[in-house]
């Protein structure tokens, strides 16, 4: 793209981005400043842009008001387990689709492709009934195994495996290595950047997940962080009283993700490259 050196248009461009950034970042700013206000100040009109006396204790109060540490560790545990299983089963599936010959291959690929088209939320009701038949409602086992396959992950890894020359597989076979060994010691390490993307994107997705976990886990101590925050929001006088505490709780729910994002943004943005690539395959 030809770049434009004229100072005026450069100024206009920076102005546009300054405004856009301000709009995008504003909710985060407003969340933090609101979290530091007293209940009186937060209702003042016109609002103060920065609290008169920042009330840092609001964060401690909110943290103590509900078992947020528990919610977060629940989310981390579930997300982590799902990531591990998805690395395993996406790797196996992708290997079969990319480097093995068998008759059902076309049919299975078509089935997985169908998974791209059907909205997963539409099968939440029957999925819920299946879990209840299996007596797995309100258990993490149920939550994890029902979430342990991702069409996105399979496509992502398959795409990466297709770029690995098939000769490597054949060379491994001549050396007498099993398919399992070839997959995990030769092919997977070459595709490690795709596995990194899978792990990161799946972790963020599952950590943030709300709808399905909320349906499955009913007991309060089982709640994941989004459901926990939401119930704090509703009980804590969503429609009135404790806005500063609610903003503080939202802040420490959002903060870990923004921190993870800042440190891993290269990998996360790489996912865009890979997602776009896996469409053409």
């Amino acid at each position, binding site marked *: *793209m030809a*770049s*434009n050196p004229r100072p005026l248009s*450069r100024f206009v*461009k*920076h102005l*546009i*981005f300054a405004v*856009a*950034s301000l*709009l*995008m*970042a*504003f*909710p*985060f700013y*407003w969340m933090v400043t609101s979290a530091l206000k007293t209940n009186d100040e937060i*209702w003042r009109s016109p*609002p103060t842009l920065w609290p008169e006396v920042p009330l840092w204790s609001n964060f401690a109060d909110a943290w103590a008001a509900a078992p947020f540490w528990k919610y977060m560790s629940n989310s981390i545990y579930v997300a982590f387990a799902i990531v591990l299983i998805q690395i395993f*089963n*996406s790797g*196996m*599936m992708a290997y*079969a689709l990319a480097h093995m*010959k068998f008759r*059902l*291959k076309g049919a*299975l690929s078509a089935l997985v492709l169908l*998974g*791209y*088209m*059907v*909205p*997963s*939320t539409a*099968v*939440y*009701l*029957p999925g819920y009934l*299946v879990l209840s038949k299996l007596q797995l409602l309100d258990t993490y086992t149920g939550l994890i195994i*029902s979430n342990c*396959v991702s069409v996105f992950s399979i496509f992502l890894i398959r795409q990466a495996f297709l770029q690995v020359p098939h000769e490597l597989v054949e060379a491994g076979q001549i050396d007498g290595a099993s*398919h399992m060994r070839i997959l995990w010691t030769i092919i997977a390490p070459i595709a490690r950047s795709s596995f990194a993307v899978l792990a990161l994107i799946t972790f963020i997705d599952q950590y943030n997940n*709300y*709808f399905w976990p909320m349906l499955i886990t009913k007991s309060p101590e089982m709640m994941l*962080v*989004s459901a926990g*925050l939401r119930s704090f*929001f509703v009980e804590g006088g969503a429609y009135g009283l404790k806005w500063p505490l*609610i903003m503080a709780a*939202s802040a420490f*729910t*959002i903060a870990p*993700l*923004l921190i993870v994002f800042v440190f891993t943004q290269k990998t*996360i*943005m790489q996912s865009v*490259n890979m997602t*776009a690539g896996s469409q*053409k395959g």
Partner: protein
Amino acid sequence: MKGSTWVRELRPILFTLPAMIPFTIFWLGPLVYVFYLSFTEWDFMSPDKLFVGLDNYRYLFENPAFYKALGVTLFFCIGTVVPVIVIGLGLALLLNTRMKGRGFYRTLLFSPWVTPTVAVSIVWSWIFEPEAGFANTVLKFFGLPELGWLKDPQWALVGVLIVTIWKLVGWAMIFYMVALNNVPEDLMEAADLDGANRFQRFMRVTLPLISPTTLFLFVVLMIQSLQAYDQINVLTQGGPSGSTRTLLYMYYQSAFESFNIGEASTVATILIIICMLFSLLTMTVSRKTTHY
């Protein structure tokens, strides 16, 4: 030798099982099951499901609430997809030139995408608070009438849309930045030599070359908006008076709030059919029109 062909066929199948077993139990099976349930009447509790044929469909097509939800869904999908694509492309075009702070802007604009929808929706519901929320402060500052936002049937959906667009626009922008990077420089120069102005170059060269990205975003965003739940649940719960009740939200409410499994399954089936028709349609269109 017979045994070894069996093994040769079986081994790949074994490799697919860790994914295919859960996929069948929690996705393929339920897909068939929900279709079957749409022909029955059931309330979760009673031991028997009553087979009622097409009754659920008939009731649904006579129910004004269904058509209202269909309209809301359509408005919500278009209201999400079009602005996200247009603004995302616009920002990418501007950012894809050499400029200071490019990386910073990119990070900042993308950041909402990684945050939990529930948490940011809670923040937005404070911004939309009618009495002391920031949205009304801005309107007052510009001398405009204040709004009820999420409490006003006329504006609630707009509020939900603002949150959704805010969250997705940076994500679409990144896709376009990648696509624009792949537009060959010499093609632009050739067009330039042929006397094409900036606008013509954009319309004739850039836009066709990035059409696969546009199509991809269109499909993905459409399917995502058909499934939007988190922000609706936090911001409005489908209200006020059904003004933000999409088909998906209607499905959720009839299944898990009024325990009308038949109606819920019927809505789900319709939702699935819409998604599949839509995906197939865009796949056909893409074969015919996109330039690779």
